[in-house]
């Protein structure tokens, strides 16, 4: 999978603030409660950027590319479902694999799933709709796997259906683009307490999570892109976070950890 990074402006890691999981939870809460930016608005931007990163990582053209989007039950999964829609629209052959039954996903994620069903996109649940052999076959034959299984709110080792799906992704050994952080990697420490994804690239949202730069994070995350979900500087200021203007050069920036 040849990466095409020339279109993306770069930002030195030292020049961008990080936010812990607890701070990011505050950021999300304040976006909704204080600024009226809904979860669906943020999710749309996250998923749209994620599809862009997948396109860049796949060499610039998604037509004929087989993309498997692995989706957890929370809002990280919802971002993956938005990306799936944009990937279909750009010509990719997309399969959506959910970790959990559809009605056990977050409300926002179910909203995105309903759109995909209406589009006739191919969606199934890992544990119930595919045999182990079918799941393995689907993943091994993917050109790119999108990891939207677990988000920044999850600490500790992945469990149950998420653990199982992550295990299959890891064993398939295909290029992975993770949303926000590789599933299984702690957002604050960068350590993996159990099974974890090693991504080719990670699109983190709003501001990077410290775990991308610590512990196993740098080895697990691959290239780190930062995506703008449209949060105002006043929001960060209200929470005492100095965000600066990381998106002055573009809405997706490549975070350069070597500089």
């Amino acid at each position, binding site marked *: 999978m040849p990466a095409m990074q020339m279109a993306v402006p770069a930002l030195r890691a030292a020049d961008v603030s990080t936010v812990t999981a*607890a701070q990011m939870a505050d950021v999300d809460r304040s976006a909704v409660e204080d600024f009226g930016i809904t979860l669906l608005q943020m999710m749309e931007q996250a998923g749209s950027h994620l599809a862009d990163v997948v396109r860049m990582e796949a060499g610039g053209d998604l037509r004929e590319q087989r993309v498997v989007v692995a989706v957890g039950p929370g809002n990280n999964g919802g971002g993956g479902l938005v990306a799936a829609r944009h990937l279909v629209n750009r010509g990719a052959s997309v399969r959506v694999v959910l970790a959990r039954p559809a009605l056990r996903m977050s409300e926002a994620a179910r909203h995105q799933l309903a759109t995909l069903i209406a589009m006739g996109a191919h969606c199934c649940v890992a544990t119930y*709709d595919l045999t182990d052999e079918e799941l393995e076959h689907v993943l091994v034959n993917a050109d790119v796997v999108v990891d939207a299984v677990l988000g920044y*709110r999850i600490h500790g080792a992945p469990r149950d259906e998420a653990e199982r799906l992550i295990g299959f992704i890891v064993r398939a050994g295909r290029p992975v683009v993770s949303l926000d952080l590789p599933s299984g990697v702690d957002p604050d420490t960068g350590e993996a307490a159990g099974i974890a994804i090693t991504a080719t690239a990670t699109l983190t949202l709003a501001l990077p999570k410290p775990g991308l730069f610590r512990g196993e994070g740098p080895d697990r995350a691959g290239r780190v892109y930062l995506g703008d979900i449209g949060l105002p500087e006043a929001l960060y200021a209200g929470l005492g976070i100095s965000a600066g203007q990381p998106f002055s050069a573009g809405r997706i920036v490549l975070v350069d950890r070597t500089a």
Partner: protein
Amino acid sequence: MTSSQTRSFTEKVGLLSEVALFAGLSEADMQAIGHATTMTHCVRGQRILSPDDPPDRIHIIKKGRIRVYRMSPDGKQLTLDIYEKGTILGDMSVLGQDRLPEAYAEAIDEGVICTISPDELNRLIERYPVVGVNIIRHLSRRLQAAERELEAMAYQRVDQRLARKLLDLGQRFGVKTERGTLIEARLTQQELAEMIGTTRETLAHTLGDFRRLGLLESSKHSVVIRDAEHLAEIADGDEASR
């Protein structure tokens, strides 16, 4: 629904008495109802419901787990949910519930399903009015629950919403133990937070308050309600005394 093995009549009656729809009936009444309903023993993979079925039957899961799924035009399945004992499936308009659109249902493991047709249900209600009363109770509980949920989201504090939700989960899924009502959490804190419209952090904080007040014990995978009465007072709007 194709039937495989039908259970013995006494077993059938024994199982029927667990269904809330039939609460309040005598042993003799239950025996009579046993004749009027179909109890099916299903095997793994057996189809229980399909969109092509006559849309007029109620199925009550008595034992086992049922997978409900949709099928795309090209035959690909998408699992919607897994239901367990006590769930009512099928055309539930008679019970005030919508039919799941285009849904199929099949048994995940061995199970027992009790099936009632509308005619059978009407006859049952005529002969045993208490069945009709039980349906009214069921509907009214559902309506009250829906109204409470709306009201809770709009006006109530997080501790009220959490207390109400825990009592509700306790009633629906709780197991009575010596220490109190045990709710085995299939839910993460994040999911519980979303159910009551708050953040995980606020939920954790409120659970901590409840623990300190001795209202409950909570661990990663379970909650034990120790003092349902006090929890109910909080749900009704009394401030949790700090």
